[in-house]
């Protein structure tokens, strides 16, 4: 859907352009009419001047020139003409007509009449009238002026108008953009506040927003609170269910152990209970993953801190103490995953790597194209390519000789998917065993060079 910013800018621009077009058309019409009126008025005055000159001179051509002192009438084809034709075919005309004359068509009225027609040098507009002199003779007096001047004046006005309205249009579009920036600023602030308040788990103050946005802020507060409640309730229910089911399962397991010590064959019952426990663990992990996926919160967790916490735990576990754990994770890399969930992902993969490694497990991290990659490698036997899909399946144990439920990698995979991440199993080129690559998109992350930004490996 078109963004609000784009809508406002496009809408504002269209409106500005439309306003300019309407304004231009209206002003064009007005100025056209105005120039035409002024042109006609000048023609009428010149016509009156010729009529007076004709009357005062007694239709004497020589004498008339003394009454008409406009040099434009003397210059051939100057564009300004007069012509008077008498009752007996006499024809008096300005020198500017040179060897041509103004054509008359139709009956000439005694009322002043404007006309447009062909002139000696292009189109002309003129005025004509049949007048009767004091001696009773009737004359037809014509005055005409080339339309070129009128067209030139109109063009000059149009150029000026276009320039002015172009400027107005540009200012209108710029204004629309500026207005959009001002209007969407509260929405930008709201987005930042929402992101910030998810971390703080506090409400956003609606009074810090314009009255149009404040109801939306209140709704977001309600939504955030509801989401927090749902996520918290989901986690609480999962924890309660874990406690409610795992303790009786432990009791059952112990009773079976007691019976076994009394030489009762309980192997089938123990197997069945083992399957129930594994299914329970996977189901609880799925509830957790679904719950994490439903959370609107996207807290950023420091990868190095989580890896170091787990490394400390693994280095202290009695059965893993003899193995070396090598960590080389840049201290400033974060991923948009809840801290507990990240440690659950890493813990399960590290446990698997530690169990299978001969002596060394390595954790490294890098950022490429906005994706954080955490690579956990070991020097164990690895997993053949054909078995890797099975390893991510629920309880897909590939080797039952090593303790464990076979759920670790599958649980980690579920959780990663809930956050839009993915997990790839591959052969470790460096250590020869399994390499588990965790890929987590992080728009905020900038690429780290493979060598320069990495700390020295710690073991």
């Amino acid at each position: 859907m078109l963004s609000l910013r784009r809508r406002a800018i496009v809408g504002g621009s269209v409106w500005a352009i439309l306003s300019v077009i309407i304004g231009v058309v209206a002003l064009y019409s007005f100025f056209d009419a105005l120039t035409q009126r002024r042109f006609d008025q000048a023609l009428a005055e010149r016509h009156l001047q010729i009529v007076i000159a004709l009357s005062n001179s007694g239709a004497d051509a020589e004498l008339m020139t003394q009454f008409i002192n406009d040099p434009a009438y003397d210059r051939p084809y100057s564009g300004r003409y007069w012509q008077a034709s008498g009752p007996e075919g006499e024809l008096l005309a300005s020198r500017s007509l040179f060897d041509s004359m103004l054509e008359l068509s139709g009956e000439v009225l005694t009322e002043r009449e404007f006309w447009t027609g062909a002139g000696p040098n292009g189109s002309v507009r003129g005025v004509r009238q049949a007048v009767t002199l004091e001696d009773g003779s009737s004359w037809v007096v014509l005055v005409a002026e080339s339309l070129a001047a009128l067209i030139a004046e109109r063009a000059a006005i149009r150029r000026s108008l276009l320039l002015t309205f172009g400027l107005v249009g540009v200012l209108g579009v710029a204004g629309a953009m500026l207005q959009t920036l001002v209007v969407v600023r509260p929405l930008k602030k709201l987005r930042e506040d929402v992101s910030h308040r998810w971390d703080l788990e506090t409400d956003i103050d609606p009074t810090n927003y314009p009255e149009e946005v404040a109801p939306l802020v209140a709704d977001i507060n309600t939504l955030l609170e509801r989401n927090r409640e749902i996520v918290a309730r989901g986690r609480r229910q999962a924890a309660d269910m874990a406690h409610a089911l795992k303790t009786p399962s432990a009791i059952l397991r112990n009773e079976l152990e007691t019976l076994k010590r009394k030489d009762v064959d309980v192997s089938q019952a123990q197997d069945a209970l083992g399957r129930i426990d594994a299914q329970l663990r996977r189901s609880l992990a799925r509830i957790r993953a679904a719950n994490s996926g439903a959370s609107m919160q996207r807290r950023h967790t420091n990868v190095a801190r989580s890896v170091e916490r787990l490394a400390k735990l693994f280095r202290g576990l009695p059965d893993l103490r003899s193995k070396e754990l090598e960590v080389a994770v840049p201290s400033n890399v974060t991923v948009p995953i809840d801290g507990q969930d990240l440690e659950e992902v890493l813990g399960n993969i590290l446990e698997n790597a530690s169990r299978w490694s001969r002596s060394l497990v390595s954790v490294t991290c890098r950022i490429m194209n906005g994706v954080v990659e955490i690579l956990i490698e070991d020097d164990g036997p690895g997993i053949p390519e054909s078995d890797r899909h099975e390893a991510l399946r629920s309880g897909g144990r590939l080797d039952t000789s090593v303790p464990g439920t076979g759920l670790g990698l599958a649980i980690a995979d579920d959780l990663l998917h809930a956050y839009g991440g993915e997990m790839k199993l591959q052969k470790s080129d460096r250590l020869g065993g399994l390499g588990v690559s965790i890929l987590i998109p992080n728009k905020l992350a900038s690429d780290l060079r493979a060598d320069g930004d990495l700390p020295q490996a710690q073991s």
Partner: protein
Amino acid sequence: MRILIAEDETVLCEQIRRVLASEGRVVDVANDGEEAAFLGATEPYDMIILDIGLPKRDGISILKEWRNQNVDTPVLILTARDGWSERVDGLDAGADDYMTKPFHMPELSARVRAMLRRKSGRANPLFQKGKIEFDLRNGRVMENGFPIDLTSQEIAVLTYLVHNTGRLVSRTELSEHIYEYDGDRDSNTIAVFVTRLRKKLGTDFIRTVRGRGYVIEET
């Protein structure tokens, strides 16, 4: 060796108590957080099995409180919370080991023994002195390969003295570690148990330091 189990599920408590008692441990039980906090801080336990999700007070806060009070008794957390963050938090709070439910009882027994051995600095679960061999894992005593029958109280006395080999242990200390919290702590009966042990294991197995206590000398 005296162990506190802080667990609200009474059936599970009884199962663990039964197994540990069969190995010669003396077991006290606390079914809520307040009782656990009090017993752990005031009684000289050799180790504590602590559930995190206890009623009234949670296990992590109790553990932190003990460590702040300089109670350095080894603690094994036994909980249904199996998240890795919770494990890290548990060990950060001062726990020595972490087990999640459901668990295998033999594994719990093994971890309890390992923690007790680590506490006493003993690497080997088999203690041998002369012809006598004492298996700390199951409380069995053999002389030249033949089993010797010991009562649970005798095993408890012997286990504590073996875990403190080379150190003089007073009757009071011994009674604190072989009797339950609400048991009848008559230190005179300690002398009876030691006399019986001498009869069964040889008079030079346990040396009495008159007026001060008992010691099993290093071999």
